[in-house]
């Protein structure tokens, strides 16, 4: 058995830290900070929100939109930023540029700049991610498919979401693994490609993956 036929299940944990920038009380301050913040900071506020502990399942996936909607009451800007999918951009600098364009446009429309209350200002964060090997190895595509619904949320995040940043083809680890085998798995890869993963929370992602597998194998798969 060659090495490429083994799928090593990894997992990850994350801890957030302050990005070292002043907080923003309004969108003008947000724009100034977005222009200079470390790229990891944008990554955190757009991509790592799904893996952070929360008491809420907000209507927008990125923190900027949630803040504009909740604390500034600027629903228009929230929606315009909320539709941005960071994985649609070639890199996060392009995302930064697009964000600034949207904010500039919004600033040009406003007669006054709404401000958040003290204590509700936008805090710029980043994260440290630790990736570790679970010690579990999969030796065949069918085993992988059976195993996916039982992976931890953070493992699904690592292999399906975070992988889009890490893999050469900007895709998920399951696809990278399965496409090395014969055409038998193409229908499943097509199903995986259809998942609009960025806009899902991890519970929804697990269900979407399970549904994709069920659509292809034509049978219900057990739930974790």
């Amino acid at each position: 058995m060659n090495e490429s036929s083994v799928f090593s299940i990894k997992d990850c944990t994350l801890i957030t830290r302050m990005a070292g920038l002043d907080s923003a009380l309004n969108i003008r301050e947000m724009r100034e900070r977005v222009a200079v913040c470390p790229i990891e900071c944008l990554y955190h506020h757009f991509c790592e929100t799904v893996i952070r502990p929360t008491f809420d399942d907000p209507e927008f996936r990125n923190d900027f939109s949630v803040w504009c909607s909740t604390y500034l009451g600027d629903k228009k800007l929230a929606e315009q930023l909320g539709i941005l999918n960071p994985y649609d951009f070639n890199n996060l600098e392009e995302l930064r540029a697009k964000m600034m364009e949207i904010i500039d446009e919004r600033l040009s429309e406003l007669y006054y700049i709404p401000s958040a209350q003290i204590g509700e200002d936008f805090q710029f964060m980043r994260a440290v991610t630790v990736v570790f090997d679970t010690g579990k190895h999969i030796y065949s595509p069918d085993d992988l498919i059976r195993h996916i619904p039982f992976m931890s949320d953070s493992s699904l995040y690592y292999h399906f979401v975070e992988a889009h940043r890490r893999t050469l083809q900007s895709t998920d680890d399951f696809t990278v693994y399965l496409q090395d085998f014969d055409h038998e798995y193409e229908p499943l890869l097509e199903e995986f490609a259809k998942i609009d993963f960025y806009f899902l929370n991890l519970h929804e992602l697990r269900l979407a993956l399970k549904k994709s597998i069920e659509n292809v194998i034509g049978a219900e798969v057990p739930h974790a």
Partner: protein
Amino acid sequence: MPRSLLEYEEIVGKINISILRQLADNLKGARVVHVNSTRVGGGVAEILDWLVSLMNDLGLEASWEVISGPPEFYYTTKTFHNALQGKASSLTKTMIEAYEDTNQQTADKLRGTLEDADFVIIHDPQPAALLEHFPNRKGKWIWRCHIDASRPYRKVWKYLEEKVVNYDASIFSMPSFAKRLPHPQFIIAPSIDPLSDKNRELEDSEIKAAMETYGIENSKPVLTQISRFDRFKDPIGVIQAFNMLRETIDADLILAGGGASDDPEGQMVLEEVLEEADGDRQIHILNLPGDAHRMINALQRASTIVLQKSLQEGFGLTVTEALWKEKPVIGGNVGGIKLQVHNHHTGFLVNTPEGAALRMRYLLRHPEELEYMGKTGRRFVQENFLLTRHLREYLTLMLGLRRGLANYLITE
């Protein structure tokens, strides 16, 4: 009571326990010392109770030390606590001496333990000055601030800042609580222990007996605030809200406070609360001992709605506890309560006694919403705010500090 991770498997799932063990494999044998100012009472002591046990269960060598001093020391540190939350306070020479002498004496007592530790985690301001007594420290020192320090009283903060700037890292409970410091500042939200006496499942008979102990009828709605007697918890505002509610709905109010040995103001506030209640037989003011965890658990479970009408709050673990017990929370629009309470989903945020009265009335008139909010709150706590997530973040932080804090670390 020492705990093992195995006991939590049924609640959090095998996979979450397995993640902890895999992470901890990279920290086996690391000596971790926690230092705070009390073993009993208050959220910090409750966290350390399980955190130390579980770190040991994972193969780390964790221990817990307590700084203790004369009454002037506690008076000073209570002043620090209030000042960090923004209350104007003055520091006298005598207060500073009491604080620094106690830290010096504790440093002498713990020299061997702290100097050789791989990680020293100093909780809150009370033992924060220990660091300066350890110029030959070998490990990483972390200041864990459980208080909302976002807008401290500046004169007192200037003094405290000097004590904490040289730590290797600090931890705050929420981003908005953090102070800008010249070292990495991490965010770890607190959590609850689902198997502790305060949170474990109880038999109905025990809950009923708890209510009978205090002569509280279970035929009427019960509104409860569990908090130490502290002005920032606004117990007077709760009584005012309750009196407004009773103009239309008959109910009982429980104000139960657990004593913490490092809070000298508690008795004074308790007397003010008793005066406000004015002997009303439907207002039950219970001054519970610091270890009355099962009683608190029973009172929360017997409640229809839990209140936490704070004017200033740290994370607000009593809110998390109530949500775990499927109780909607009416909470003050401050601190960590804002993180936990979402209007119409897990409870209501309020700003005044009038707001609290209005929301109590609304919930008592809409039992279906009350039930939905209870279930929603429980789900969020289950997924994110149990101790296993908290422990995982500590392990992640320690691994990160050991490896130089790259954004992305791959362990062997």
